[in-house]
């Protein structure tokens, strides 16, 4: 049975979304994307030189992938909106990952500005994927505003610390009627598998692949981890018990 992820009217086969920054050599991107077998690749608009597109990172993203321009560098909703419109005008499609960051130390998203940008861009027909701190009321507002998915962080960008926000992510997965894509903080394949096991629709990661010594092998490892986690989630995982099964049941007398 096909297990497709639907976002913005498109059926997506791969639940691993990769980035395109931080590589020592952008020519690695094609091989990495192939090894990750992903369908969606995010690109930081701040780094795209539209005056010299042949030299820009866009030239290295395989043409058959869905381009997910991100608004990294935006400090306000207005800046994010402007970047998104620019991307669409430049032929980068109508998908956008909203990234509004007012904190350069931890690169945590500004949820308020993110919501404001989502409201505007969803109305303009963008497929909006907002990067957010995992907050349930905000996630509901984002979806109500037209977000095609929500992208809560597992840990700060680039930290490779794993799912530090696990309890909050589980609540979002349970309560939000839109794909929950865990973005940021995933440093190891086991983190990606864990995100999929709890029912995340997909994961987005970049640093863990781009900054590894062998990005292509690491991309393959993440593909396998995401597939494994997804299969496990769909198969229904056994419950976890911290207690042993008592050989002398305490309520056995009720059966007597």
């Amino acid at each position, binding site marked *: 049975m096909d297990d497709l992820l639907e976002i913005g009217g498109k059926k997506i086969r791969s639940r691993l979304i990769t980035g395109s920054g931080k590589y*020592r050599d952008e020519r690695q991107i094609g091989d990495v994307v192939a090894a990750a077998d992903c369908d969606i690749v995010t690109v930081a608009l701040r780094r795209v*030189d539209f005056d010299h*597109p042949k*030299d820009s990172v866009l030239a290295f993203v395989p043409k058959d992938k869905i381009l997910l321009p991100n608004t990294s560098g935006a*400090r306000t909703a207005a800046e994010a909106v402007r970047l998104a419109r620019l991307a669409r005008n430049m*032929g980068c499609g109508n998908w956008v990952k909203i990234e509004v960051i007012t904190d*350069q*130390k931890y*690169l945590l998203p500004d949820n308020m500005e993110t919501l404001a940008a989502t409201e505007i861009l969803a109305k303009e027909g963008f497929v909006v994927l907002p990067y957010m701190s995992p907050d349930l009321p905000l996630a509901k507002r984002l979806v109500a505003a037209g977000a095609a998915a929500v992208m809560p962080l597992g840990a700060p960008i680039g930290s490779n610390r794993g799912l530090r926000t696990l309890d909050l992510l589980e609540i979002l997965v349970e309560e939000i009627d839109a794909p929950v894509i865990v973005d940021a903080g995933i440093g190891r394949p086991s983190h990606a598998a864990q995100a999929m096991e709890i029912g995340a629709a997909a994961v987005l990661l970049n640093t863990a692949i781009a900054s590894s010594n062998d990005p292509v092998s690491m991309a393959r490892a993440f593909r396998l981890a995401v597939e494994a986690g997804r299969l496990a989630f769909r198969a229904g995982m056994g419950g976890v018990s911290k207690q042993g099964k008592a050989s002398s049941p305490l309520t056995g007398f009720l059966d007597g």
Partner: protein
Amino acid sequence: MSFYETITRYSSFDFGGFLASVTPEQVETIIDKDKLLEHDYLALLSGAAAGFLEPMAHKAASLTRKNFGSVMFIFTPLYVSNHCDNGCPYCSFARQHRIARSHLSNAKIREEACAIARTGMRHILVLTGESRSMASPEYVREAVSVVHEHFSSVSVEVYPMTTEEYAALAAFGADGITIYQETYNEAKYHELHRGGPKDNYVFRLDAPDRAARAGMRAATVGALLGLYEPRSEAFFTGLHAHYVQKTFPSLEVSVAFPRLRPMVREFEAYCEISDRLYVQMLLAARLFLPRCGITVSTRESREFRNAIAPLGVTKMSAGVSTAVGGRAAGSASTSQFEIADNRTLDEMKSDLAGLGFQAVMQDWNSHYLAEEELPSTFNNGIH
């Protein structure tokens, strides 16, 4: 709120005593910590920590790769005026020196900007000597405006300005400022700058605050190493960046550790900064401030810059001339200092690639936020 409060807090601090008291065991513990406190940072600048450069380097390299990736941001300076009202004894541009003074017209600035842009450079730093009369705020604005037409991002390194003046610069296309305190030691600062317009320690110290309030996106701070005791200068550089980062979280903050270079007249430096001490400062800053930018200019040699590229550096200048009008054809004026790395941009890119770094020419494009419709050059769809 001002960084001056921090400076004051340390005014009677015994740096020598503290640095001498640090033990190797303390250093080892600090290197293993996730988050460093102020005194941890200072301990990493101690003589004891000099014995741990290798483990510090490994941690610095790993932190930098995680936070910034295997990339190096590239920029180039453009000197537009070397008139100066100050008498800084360590600088070739100082008013007492009989050097060829030059002041580029808008047309000449455009010529220079075009020549530089043709090399593929996208980020530029516009510099002037500190003369409010010859390089007035209006002149700097004009220069920024002209240069901005040819570059993705423009920063300025000029005299400290008021918030309103910075706001006007930002409106004309400037994204960031670089301002060196020269020395964080207040007494030494006044000794070196007595009588000149620069003799206002706090006004200079607070320049990044005003730039941030004016809407600038980035600021680079630091001291000119060689003017005073270098370990405390490095310490205050890190603390200054930390203060600015905390006070203005949306500002991208960087530090630099420029060493005094030979200039037009001999100046007796307070001390020489050895390569070993320079590296220690770099590593300590990276461990204390994992997300902070670290800039290294062509004051440093090709060999040295290649060697330290993986140790925490995030930004390097390339294709540099420190003379006014040094790029386009024609005569260049006296240089501010002798540069030690004459590589072209292509040579830099090639060296960086060999070291495992992608040279990033554009990390921001302020034109993308412009109110007007997209420039006519933006006419090619990509996908």
